[in-house]
């Protein structure tokens, strides 16, 4: 299992490519493995390819789950 990093799409390019960014660091990546990429989407990036979109609602649910563990 592999080193992958969540990045944000800041520009969609022709030919299944996009510019992704994390904390000011930019990289051109391939979006050939996912559908319907929009600027502002977050994706998981691995070896230059976006593997899957990050679902912001589910991400929020996870954070809420963590917080609910905090003892009363």
């Amino acid at each position: 299992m592999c080193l992958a990093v969540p990045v944000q799409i800041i520009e969609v390019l022709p030919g299944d490519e996009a510019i992704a960014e994390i904390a000011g660091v930019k990289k051109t990546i391939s979006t050939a493995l996912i559908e319907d990429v929009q600027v502002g989407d977050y994706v998981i990036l691995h070896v230059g390819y976006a593997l899957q979109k990050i679902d912001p609602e589910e991400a929020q649910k996870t954070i809420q789950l963590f917080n609910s563990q905090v003892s009363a």
Partner: protein
Amino acid sequence: MQEKKKHYVRPLNIKNGKIEMNYGAGGKASAQLISELFAKYFNNEYLMQGDDGAYLPAAEGHIVMATDSHVVSPIFFSGGDIGSLSVHGTVNDVSVCGAKPLYLSAGFILEEGFPLADLEKIVKSMAEEAKKAGVYIVTGDTKVVEKGKGDGIYINTTGVGVVPKGIHLSGANCKPGDVIAVSGDIGDHGIAIMSQRANLGFETEIQSDSASLNSMTEALVKEIPSLRCMRDPTRGGLGTTLNELATQSKVGMKIEEAKIPVKEQVTAACEFLGLDPLFVANEGKLIAICGPEDAEKMLEIMRANPLGKNAQIIGTCVEDENCFVQMETPFGGTRMVDWLSGEQLPRIC
């Protein structure tokens, strides 16, 4: 009567000219290169003596000498170039020994075909940085190798400085209880260089932190009586340097991850590549270790210097016969910070 015509020497074509083999041969071409490029920018009374070696004034106190060779690629990068790096590197090596750096030598190995315009940029940059640091480049040498036998340009700089009486810093001086501080954000230089390597293809605004630290070291030497040692974490990064010091002093170290200053962009770039910022090179930072009684003052002095605004105390030396450097993670767990085994490579896994 005819006046003897003044011998005309066509000036170097800096704009479009290239280094040729005869520039390293010691004859007229070499002399021209020296006068129109090196001496022009490095201009000082010692260099102008024009002898094989420079006669320098006597100095009081112990002499410190350090040398560094520079082979960085790319030679021009965000925040500096091989020239500025060669000045900073040696000034820092002399300074962290507690000495006031005074004079530098500069040896160049140039590849046939290297553009004179690039050489001029580099030499200018060296002159500027030497001036900022208050050091003179007093002697030098130039050799030229055939095309294909060099990487454009290699520079060696050797520096000498003088240590004030009574000061003897050493990596072997540290004792359990001593406090460790770093002068600012780590990893900038390594990431800046890597971002310009084509095959890694990422863009960042991170600039190399390459800088001369002698104003900071001089203040520390003057004001911190219990200063044990200073060192600049260049190749191998903070992690490797801490291990070197721990082993030399035969102590262990306990540092706190949460206290180590790192820019967010550097962390992000490291995430991209699977690198650990602890092992990424720095060229404008130093580690200083002193007795616990002077810790606050040491931090104050670092932060008062423009290059030390983000200085932090990161840990302490401890009793440990294994000389381990251990780091407390923000989660309360502990992990080892081990020597770097070879060069860090980007990873996929």
